[in-house]
């Protein structure tokens, strides 16, 4: 019996209502959920150099060193732990990203599809850093954290992969889907003093 591929359905469909939350004013932030394909890529033992070469040739991307993210027009790679990266791409079809990464890296790396396991959010605006600082223990000041940098750290007591996208500033927040609803609940409270415009999901 043919089984249709499951479409990823964000747990935030119910929790994240588009519209304005909290205070009204010019200092508001923007929050949006993004539908993304995610895979975790881990180098096989002793194959880190092979993996870096395979990813550069097959996916056109240099795997970033600790604490950093690399992007190409279609793909982002975020360092998450030694010899392991989270790859993030616009959602096309179920399993497509994992298949193409697996084909590119061959036996040099292990590929695990995380599309349903993690949820992607972006928080943007002049006060975005102030909002995150209420629950994030790393220094996000521009002297310490800039676009291209990434960190795995708890935000609002929930483990989060955080990376800065631009100087708006905009931050991408990747959390476990099972905790995404609780995370957004916290985030909207943290942003209430400045106001938060929730955009419809991407």
């Amino acid at each position, binding site marked *: 019996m043919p089984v249709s591929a499951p479409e990823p359905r964000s747990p935030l469909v119910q929790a994240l209502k588009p519209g304005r939350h909290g205070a009204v004013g010019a200092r508001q932030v923007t929050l949006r959920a993004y539908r993304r394909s995610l895979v975790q890529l881990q180098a096989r033992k002793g194959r880190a150099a092979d993996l870096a070469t395979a990813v550069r040739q097959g996916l056109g991307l240099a795997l970033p060193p*600790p*604490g950093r993210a690399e992007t190409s027009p279609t793909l982002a790679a975020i360092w*998450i*732990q*030694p010899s392991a990266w989270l790859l993030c791409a616009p959602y096309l079809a179920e399993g497509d990203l994992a298949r193409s990464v697996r084909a590119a890296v061959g036996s040099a790396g292990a590929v695990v599809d995380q599309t349903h396991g993690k949820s992607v959010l972006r928080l943007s605006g002049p006060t975005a850093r102030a909002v995150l600082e209420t629950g994030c*223990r*790393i220094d996000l000041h521009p002297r310490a954290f800039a676009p291209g940098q990434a*960190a*795995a*750290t*708890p935000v609002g007591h929930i*483990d989060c992969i955080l990376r800065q996208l631009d100087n708006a500033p905009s931050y991408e927040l990747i959390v476990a889907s099972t905790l995404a609803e609780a995370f957004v609940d916290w985030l909207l409270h943290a942003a209430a003093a400045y106001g938060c415009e929730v955009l419809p999901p991407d």
Partner: protein
Amino acid sequence: MHRIDCPWCGVRDEIEFAYRGDATVKRPEAGAGVDAFYAYVYERGNPRGWHIEWWHHAAGCRQWIKVLRHTLTHEIRATAKAGDTVTAPKP
């Protein structure tokens, strides 16, 4: 609150880490006998001074790291990757 310099992630708060005990304990040889294994599993020193410890960066890079910490002052003098050697200063 400790501030621990993870060799992978940089300085992070203690809350991201889990303490995982004495990093100097060595597993005995397979035929070492029950007393040696009892000591390996259960017996630990309680030093007043420098202590080489395992800390697990559970909420960050998920790596186990070695930390040289003073049990009296809580000073952290060195951190290292799991495979690196850390030596305690003379008391």
